[in-house]
């Protein structure tokens, strides 16, 4: 069949194209980081570092203290963690270990639905329904608080935590469970003392990824946290400003090339680095756990 040469050329072209697309991911990460740096580093020059670390974020008066923003993101995320970690892990345990097969097939798509809910829709409900409720229940001046944001963020982080943790629990070899049961343990004892501990790193990864997502959330928090950049010890029950909401809210009104503009990019760099760190740690934990499992099962 006289096709060899033409086919060989085709194969090399395809291989080149496919390879370029494969490399593109690295290219995109690099380009994103570069652009952020290009627009964000000037802020370090234009604003004295002492000011950046100050407690007042008031761009109109050229005050660019990042601390209230960091605190805002931090408080909201920790609040989300308090709700989503127990709920998420419990749900994952239920789906992976307790629910019968038919229930699993129903629950998993259900959690996926939650994952698909746009953050603006949750923010909308939070603004219209949840915030007024919180105002009345907790007797606060306004329902637009960090707490409200935390609840919404917990809802958004939950599906991530559930699916990654569930994968981790699934990956625990059946022989571990069978062994424990054979030794006379009850199902719950097996889960609590054998399965969960051995899935420890996977569950930790799940939590990290979920919280990573929470820190990066924009719309839902922007709509319900009240957007007041302030620092107080009871921050949870008062309005706050996250880094993400700051960027989203102020970028539209900023003159391109102004100091404010550059500082917003600086905030974006911080967010990028945080998510970078979280994901590197999480993926190396997953990677190491997978290697350990492969060694044990081979």
């Amino acid at each position, binding site marked *: 069949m006289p096709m060899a040469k033409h*086919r060989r050329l085709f*194969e090399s072209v395809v*291989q080149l194209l*496919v390879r370029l*697309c*494969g*490399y*593109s*991911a690295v290219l*995109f*990460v690099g380009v*994103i980081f570069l652009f*952020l740096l*290009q*627009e964000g580093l000037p802020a370090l020059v234009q604003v004295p570092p002492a000011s950046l670390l100050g407690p007042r974020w008031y761009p109109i008066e050229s005050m660019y203290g990042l601390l209230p923003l960091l605190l805002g993101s931090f408080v909201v995320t920790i609040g989300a963690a308090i709700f989503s970690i127990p*709920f998420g892990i*419990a749900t994952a*345990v*239920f789906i992976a270990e*307790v*629910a019968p097969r038919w229930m699993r097939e129903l*629950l998993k*798509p259900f*959690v*996926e*639905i*939650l994952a*698909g*809910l*746009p*953050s*603006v*829709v949750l923010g*909308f*409900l939070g*603004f*219209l329904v949840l915030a007024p409720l919180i105002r009345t229940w907790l007797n606060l001046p306004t329902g637009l608080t960090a707490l409200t944001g935390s609840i919404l963020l917990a*809802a958004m982080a*939950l599906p991530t935590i559930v699916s990654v943790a569930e994968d981790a629990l699934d990956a625990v070899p059946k022989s571990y469970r069978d062994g424990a049961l054979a030794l006379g343990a*009850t*199902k*719950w*004892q097996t889960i609590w003392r054998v399965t969960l501990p051995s899935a420890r790193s996977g569950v930790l990864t799940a939590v990290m990824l979920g919280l*990573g997502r929470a*820190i*990066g959330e*924009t719309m839902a928090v922007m*709509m319900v946290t009240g957007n007041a950049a302030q620092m107080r010890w009871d921050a949870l029950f008062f309005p706050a400003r996250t880094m*993400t909401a700051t*960027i989203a809210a102020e*970028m*539209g009104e900023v003159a391109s090339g102004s100091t404010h503009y550059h500082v917003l*990019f600086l905030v*974006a760099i911080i*967010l990028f680095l945080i*998510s*970078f760190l979280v*994901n*590197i740690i999480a*993926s190396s934990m997953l990677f190491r756990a997978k290697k350990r499992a492969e060694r044990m099962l081979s």
Partner: protein
Amino acid sequence: MRIPRALAQRIAFALLTAIMAVTVLAILTIITYIFWNGLPALSGEFLFSMPKDGMREGGIWPAIVGTLYLTIGTALIAVPIGLMAAIYLSEYAPDSTFTRAIRIAIVNLAGIPSVVYGLFGMALFVLFLSLGSSIIAACLTLAIMTLPVIISTAEEALRAVPQSFRVVSISMGGTRWQTIQRIVLPQALPGILTGVILGLERAAGETAPILFTGASFFLPHLPQSVFDETMALPYHLFVISTQVPGMPVRIQYGTALVLLIFVLAMNLIATLIRSYYRRRRQW
């Protein structure tokens, strides 16, 4: 006081079930609430006509059209690149440090906050490349954001195809691409499709990436070219619920419902594809 094991198990399981029930109930409540309040607003006029009186009346047709444009545009850019990247990772990539670097890059792209994408999109596409605030800038931004999801799920689908098929094909004189094109890709297609739809579902619902790259609130007519701005459902919902005084609640819920239906429909289609083809699999 030592709790007997059987009792401890009953308590633990009851607690777990309760938590599960609360979660399920919460999700159901959210969805039902939006349907309940939004359904009355849905009418032919609401869905298919242009808005009037500063969005306080009339329809949201341009927002619906805008979201469709953005979703399709994102797909056209992200799917070819993402699929080829997945093919590279699954079928061609050697076991090297650079391949690991690619994977790390993908994980990172997946984790970048959507507002950072919006900022980057603005800096690169709108300003640097002078595309202006436009559909094309927004689609490019959304495409890069959707890329990691598509690559991950497509790669998983490709890897799931048994290696024995590839070995047999090669042993009969097939080249790598022939094997991919004739066996691996067709078998992986349902999984790839599911991943693409789920990725696009997310792109359709995102607001932050399009805030500064192409979305606009009040446009007098539908976009005429890819260089025009467009209205979009998520952005529209954001503005009418938080920025416009006197906006009828009915319209807000109606908009939220339309967006919700859009997203749920994609979810449903993806799930159906997945379960249908799982049963028909020939391996």
